[in-house]
């Protein structure tokens, strides 16, 4: 109700999930958009003539990567402020995402931006200064917290956000999570890509792969344990397209993140009072692109069984779960708070 009043007053609330691999925006005007978190600037004058734009984003930037200085600003979960153009790339992504939300020219933008937990710990000021240029009022939160809020998991819950650069763990216990309630590990989607690349190169030494192809294979087939289907892809060998069976390599690569996932989950739960441990174990939610790996929720549930019963579920829409949660935070935030955050 309050939110509707404020929309009338000329504010547009947006929730942004600034991810390592993909970034999404959910706006109060019902817009929902996403892009791959790549920003590319033409390498020189000729490249600019070829691509026809001063800056390219997402899949378009990837397609033209040979002509561009390509940057994935939150690689490994942090902004390298002042080096590698990371902060400039974040500014460009935010500007582009807000443009996709199509705000009216007189609308003020009130944004809640979810970032990987480590970015929030390490680069608080850098992320604020990179984002604030394009919004009128801003709050920065950790991604798993935004997911938890969006799903109303405010108490006795563990959110595990398996992203590209990092896997973030966040325990919710009725208050804003403190640093000790959150943990980040680097075994995430990019790690799976690296493993898959090395397994495929080992098995098919004369075939030509690149990291982008490997990522696409992962996104198309990822699974743990077993699935009945065959997994075959066409890869050029000496210029000729040849069919390759990659099922075993996909499974091995996806399963490579499981030991760290299980270990960190048990470690996070064990930090709590035994009474709360039982409640948290029955409220574990997987989010992020990694939650789309088939069988991963069941695997984690079985792995934790030896510590008692538990229930692991995955969010239904990992691409927008973070930005939807951030939007909900933006809309619920009292007006007096926004006034201070200009």
């Amino acid at each position, binding site marked *: 109700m309050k939110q509707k009043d404020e929309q009338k007053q000329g504010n547009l609330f947006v929730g942004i999930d600034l991810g390592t691999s993909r970034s999404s925006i959910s706006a109060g005007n019902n817009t929902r958009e996403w892009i791959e978190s790549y920003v590319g600037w033409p390498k020189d004058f000729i490249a600019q003539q070829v691509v026809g734009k001063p800056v390219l984003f997402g899949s378009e930037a990837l397609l033209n990567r040979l002509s561009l200085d390509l940057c994935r600003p939150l690689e490994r979960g942090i902004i*390298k402020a002042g080096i590698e153009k990371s902060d400039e790339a974040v500014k460009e992504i935010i500007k582009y995402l807000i443009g996709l939300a199509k705000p009216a020219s007189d609308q003020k933008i009130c944004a809640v931006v979810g970032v990987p937990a480590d970015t929030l710990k*390490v680069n608080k000021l*850098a992320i604020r200064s990179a984002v604030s240029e394009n919004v009128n009022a801003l*709050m920065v939160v950790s991604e798993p917290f935004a997911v938890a809020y969006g799903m109303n998991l405010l108490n006795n819950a563990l959110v595990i956000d398996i992203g590209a650069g990092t896997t973030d763990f966040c325990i919710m216990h009725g208050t*804003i999570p403190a640093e000790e309630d959150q943990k980040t590990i680097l075994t995430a989607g990019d790690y799976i890509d690296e493993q898959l690349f090395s397994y495929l190169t080992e098995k098919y030494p004369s075939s030509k792969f690149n990291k982008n192809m490997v990522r696409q294979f992962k996104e198309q087939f990822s699974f743990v344990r077993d699935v009945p289907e065959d997994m075959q892809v066409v890869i050029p060998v000496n210029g000729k397209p040849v069919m390759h069976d990659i099922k075993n390599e996909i499974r091995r690569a996806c399963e490579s993140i499981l030991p760290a996932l299980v270990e960190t989950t048990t470690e996070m739960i064990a930090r709590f009072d035994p009474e709360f441990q039982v409640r948290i174990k029955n409220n574990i939610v997987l989010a992020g692109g990694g939650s789309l790996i088939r069988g991963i929720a069941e695997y984690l549930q079985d792995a934790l069984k030896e510590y008692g019963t538990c229930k692991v579920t995955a969010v239904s829409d990992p691409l927008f779960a973070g930005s939807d949660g951030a939007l909900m935070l933006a809309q619920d*935030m009292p007006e007096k708070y926004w006034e*201070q955050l200009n």
Partner: protein
Amino acid sequence: MMTIFSKNNEIKQKKEILRGLYEENLKILGKGGARIYKQRPFFFRKMFLSFCLAIAAVLLHGIFFNTAFFPEKELTASIISQNVPLMSVKAPAEDLLATSDYKAFINNQGVSLSRMFGLGVKTIMIDPGHGGADSGTIGKMGTMEKDVALDIARRLKERLTKTGHYHVLMTREGDVAVPLNKRVSMTQAARADLFISVHLNYLPAKPINIIETYYFGPTSDVKTEKLVEQENAGSEYGLSDFREMIEKIGDTLKLQESREFATAIQKNLFVNSRMHDGAVYDFGIKRAPFVVLLGVEVPAVLAEVSCLSNRQEEKELSTEGHRENIARYLEAGIMDYLNKGDLTHEAKR
């Protein structure tokens, strides 16, 4: 009834969370004081007033009786320049090399030859390690030594230039490969009076953060030999050059000054870094045959200012504030060395 109760509880929880989030973001903005307070009962206000009065009394006591209430302000070089040793710098056990009859005189650490002969410093050469295709060490999160070293060097240059006393140069201004012999010839051509090479360490076996500073000299330590091999790769020196270079080893003034310079850098880096990271290790000053240190004819050190194999340190290095701090500590070290005997210099924020 239960539903209404749990609904109310949920609303209360949400309010608390939103308020916590707001206050956290205010802190990032530096507006921590703007938090929304509830009116506190008179008893608490009275307690708070008494507390404030007590604090004011203690502060006034400090002013009138010259109490150092904020010891952290006595940062860096000002502490170090005093005679009271704050920490022990691990120096190599061997005596300085000297061939003349003046060995005892030269090795007397109380006598600085540069000060005795009134030698001043006008030009400082900063050498950011690696560059171009040579990335140096790479942290687990992809941070490259060449980028961090360049950024710290740029910040150090800016700080030193601002003092208005020195002409400050760098062996590379961008991400380009510069062979070690070129770095040496640039230093000589610029007639630099002081040379500092900025590097970052990597310890694959131990996840600790260490600081160490090198000056030229022989080493018997296997780990140091390995590090020297890595850093000397791509020197582009020939064997014929090496004979001439080895002859310079007996340059006592340079050795003595380099050792003092290394001590000042190491102390300032370590003491100040320890304020932020209690777990940082002091590996002291060391001798090592880095060709870049041998080639230059003026006091020269190679500072391993941080350690990329330590994940927490790698994260910290991704922030501009931490890199600025390291540049500040290096500046304090240089000033400490240049103001030998002076007690006044303090690193500027």
